[in-house]
């Protein structure tokens, strides 16, 4: 049979049995729709939770410390054969190595210090405040804590800017003591505006490298360069002042490494903090150990995805460093991420099976109904292959149509479920989320899938139709 006859016959067969064929097509569409709906919800849920958990900063970071950090004097006495040479120092070389591990988004030092901050509220005289200062990488902008940021995030990694915690903001504004702890409540915009754009003076101790001269050079960059070269590990401490512009007020402290005893109340960009060469506790240790160059107390390694953490952590551990991540604390948390990945696969294959069975069923039923027609065609000279092709083309056409319909239907179902869930969430006072998400690959995939499954499911009925005994089929009733 020629191609145009095949298409024409298939077309008229489809048109002639509108009811049966539209039911078949709807069967395919429902299968594809359930696939699309389940997958889009799966992808949506994964995105929502992945994003939420990822944004909390808890699950996508590994904290790396040099091994000696955790060695006590006792350890040292008990294990005297442990050479200091075995202990890798957490320096810039190590930092660069971590950056090269696949899946690593960024590596930054954990910088915390307590310093004096001077602030003049509403043009009054400057008053000193003491606060823990924490450096934040620019990526922290995406963290959950900054969702309700008042004002702006740092304009750059080295911007001389600061973001203050709501509680500290109240202190700066000299609000009554008893209102300060209510940090769950946002500062009023008016109050926030009394701070944002204003100057905060930071007084701190700088670790200034001695270059032969006993007096610290004022240029911290030069000091750093000398430091890195390892030419000199002898330094002095210099008192400095830095004027910072308050750009924002945040109500919850973003997660950034191991929680210190004191909470960070003022945040500055990591780049700025690094260039300021704060005096750090590790500096003292460096001095005592006489190790080369500047070392970090802790480095925070952030991964692109929480699921990559175990591998990254293992890699770093093998390099000889101490590592810690939230995922250590709870193995089940890792299962959550694995489950989210499996969720897609499980529900996808369920929907897949349902869809294929539906298609297969409807097409086999169609053949039972069309036995006589097949018998007639064979008696008139249709070959087995002609019959097979005809059924195959019909299955394919229904597959394409069912795919288009099913994809849009699944999309709609996803939307409706999403809509319903959001109404429910709103009632529970939980911020709404898009649990439903249809990425382009899902649309294309669902279409391709429905055509392939229709053809695949059409294969069996088509060969059954082709093998149909015309004598049996034509036996008069």
């Amino acid at each position, binding site marked *: *049979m020629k191609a145009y006859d095949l298409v024409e016959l298939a077309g008229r067969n489809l048109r002639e049995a509108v009811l049966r064929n539209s039911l078949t097509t709807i069967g395919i569409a429902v299968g594809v729709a359930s696939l699309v709906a389940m997958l889009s919800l799966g992808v949506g849920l994964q995105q929502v939770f992945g994003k939420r958990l990822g944004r909390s900063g808890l699950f996508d970071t590994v904290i790396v410390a040099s091994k000696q950090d955790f060695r006590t004097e006792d350890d040292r006495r008990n294990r005297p054969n442990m050479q200091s040479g075995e202990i890798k120092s957490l320096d810039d070389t190590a930092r660069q190595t971590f950056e090269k591990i696949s899946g690593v988004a960024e590596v930054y030092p954990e910088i915390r210090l307590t310093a004096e901050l001077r602030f003049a509220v509403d043009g009054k005289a400057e008053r000193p405040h003491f606060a823990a200062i924490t450096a934040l990488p620019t990526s922290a902008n995406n963290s959950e804590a900054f969702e309700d940021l008042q004002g702006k995030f740092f304009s750059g990694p080295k911007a001389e800017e600061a973001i203050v915690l709501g509680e500290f903001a109240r202190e700066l504004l000299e609000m009554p003591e008893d209102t300060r702890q209510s940090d769950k409540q946002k500062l009023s915009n008016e109050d926030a505006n009394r701070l944002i754009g204003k100057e905060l003076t930071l007084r701190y101790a700088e670790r200034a490298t001695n270059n032969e001269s006993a007096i610290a050079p004022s240029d911290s960059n030069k000091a750093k360069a000398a430091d890195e070269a390892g030419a000199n590990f002898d330094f002095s401490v210099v008192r400095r002042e830095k004027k910072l512009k308050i750009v924002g007020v945040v109500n919850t402290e973003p997660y950034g490494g191991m929680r210190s005893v004191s909470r960070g109340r003022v945040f500055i960009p990591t780049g700025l903090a690094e260039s300021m060469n704060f005096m750090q506790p590790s500096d003292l240790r460096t001095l005592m150990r006489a190790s080369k160059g500047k070392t970090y107390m802790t480095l925070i390694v952030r991964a692109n995805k929480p699921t990559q953490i175990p591998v990254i952590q293992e890699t770093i551990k093998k390099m000889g460093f101490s590592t810690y991540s939230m995922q250590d604390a709870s193995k089940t948390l890792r299962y959550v991420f694995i489950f989210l990945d499996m969720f897609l696969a499980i529900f996808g294959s369920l929907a897949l099976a349902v869809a294929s069975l539906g298609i297969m069923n409807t097409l086999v039923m169609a053949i039972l109904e069309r036995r006589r027609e097949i018998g007639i065609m064979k008696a*008139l000279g249709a070959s087995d292959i002609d019959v097979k092709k005809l059924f195959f083309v019909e299955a394919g056409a229904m597959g394409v149509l069912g795919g288009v319909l099913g994809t849009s239907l699944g999309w709609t179902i996803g939307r409706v479920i999403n809509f319903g869930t959001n109404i429910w969430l709103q009632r529970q006072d939980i911020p709404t989320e898009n649990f439903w998400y249809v990425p382009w690959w899902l649309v294309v995939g669902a279409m391709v899938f429905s055509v392939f499954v229709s053809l695949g499911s059409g294969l069996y009925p088509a060969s059954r139709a082709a093998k149909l005994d015309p004598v049996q089929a034509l036996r*008069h009733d």
Partner: protein
Amino acid sequence: MRSDLEAIKTIDVRRHYKMGTNVISAVDGVSLTIRDGEFAALLGTSGSGKSTLMNLIAGLDRPSSGSILVHGRDLAQMTSEELAKYRRHTVGMVFQSFNLVPTMNLAENVELPMRFAEVDRAERNDRVQDALKRVRLSARLTHRPSELSGGEQQRAALARALVNRPKLLLADEPTGNLDSKTGEEIMNLIQELNSTLGTTVVMVTHERALAERYATRMIFLGDGKVLDAGEQLTTATVNIAGGVQ
């Protein structure tokens, strides 16, 4: 229009059906020769194997043993693809229950065999017209089978059977569902085709009167065997007394 050329020659054809442990011999060692241009009537009681033999000759079924030679080629040796080709070019079939495709109008029904035979599209319309004219249904081109009487449906089926210009016309009780007047109409048409086109006709019928009137030869089957091969007796049937009904 009879010649001495063998159109169909069956040699000890058997067709068995296995029903659990017992075997039913629907056709049980039939050897027959039908010459080119003959109009043969196949008679016999119900269940005597007439339809089974017809389907074997039509290439819709395969014999359990024996050979069926049509113009010298053995159907039993053909692949299913070759059999399909044989059906579309050599055979035209008519059935008791007409077997028109109910969703197609007459023109489409008649065109259907030409689709399988890959007849040029340009040629098809003329051939449809010719065939329907021959059975005097030119006015009903766009009607569906359900809109026609039984006789008209059978005429349309006849047109469809002839459109690929077959050498053999196989008709299984073509008048079985028709009243005697309409049946005669069909028989006249078949006879006309046999005499004008020289088509070899094998027709199954219950009605001996019709067979006597139109056929050039009567073959009697009983229990899957040839009881009487008509004037052309074969060795297999020569000793069997021909008393039927």
